[in-house]
């Protein structure tokens, strides 16, 4: 009986994770599309040098970070995937969402400063969240402040 209740709870949580997680993810992806379109004028590169003809008045560090967690369904799907091996799609979408969010936060900071170019961009990953399937993505770079004309 206890085992049955346990199974029912687990299945319930997986179903909850699947439906609610999917809705929340869809909402986040739509929001990302919209914000990325709004910030599309900012060029992001991971080289350190400026184009030869470009004049700059200075630069400043900009950063964006996000801690993201997996939902119950994704965790369950990943544990199944672990048995047979191969690409873990559920975590792949989670991490790509987190990278887009962290990058966007950095870009929005640059934009607020009037910058249209962020150079030397780096992504960092760390497992500093709780003891759950989660990760922190940190994105940083130097926003170039345009020369006044």
């Amino acid at each position, binding site marked *: 009986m206890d085992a049955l209740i346990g199974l029912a709870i687990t299945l319930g949580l997986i179903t909850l994770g699947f439906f609610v997680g999917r809705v929340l993810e869809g909402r986040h992806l739509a929001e990302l599309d919209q914000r990325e379109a709004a910030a599309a004028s900012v060029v992001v590169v991971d080289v350190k040098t400026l184009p030869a003809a470009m004049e700059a008045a200075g*630069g400043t560090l900009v950063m964006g970070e*996000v801690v993201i967690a997996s939902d119950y369904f994704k965790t369950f799907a990943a544990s199944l995937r672990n048995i047979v091996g191969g690409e873990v799609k559920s975590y792949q979408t989670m991490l790509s969402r987190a990278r887009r969010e962290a990058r966007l936060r950095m870009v929005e900071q640059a934009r607020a400063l009037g910058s249209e170019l962020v150079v030397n961009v780096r992504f960092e990953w760390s497992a500093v969240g709780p003891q759950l399937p989660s990760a922190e993505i940190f994105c940083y770079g130097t926003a170039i402040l345009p020369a006044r004309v």
Partner: protein
Amino acid sequence: MIIVNTETVPGKETTAFHGLVQGNTIRAKHVGRDIGAALKNLVGGELKAYTELLTEARRDAVNRMIAQAEALGANAVVNVRFTTSSIAGGAAELYAYGTAVTVA
């Protein structure tokens, strides 16, 4: 104080080096945050409390680095790097370092 992660400040010239400057901070979260995170783990998504904790901690590490640079008489820190490490479950170290310089 100008902070950049490029080797020079764009549009300015480095006139003097003052040496390496650094700042670190180690943060632990409180239990309430973990309970919230466990609930969030059912449906997935951003753990806002953790994001805030790390954002704040990283700004603190940067500010400590800036304080060192100011003490050296620098007006910029270039080539800034960050590292994050987790020390014993639940505590994280945020570390920022760079080179203090004078730019003109």
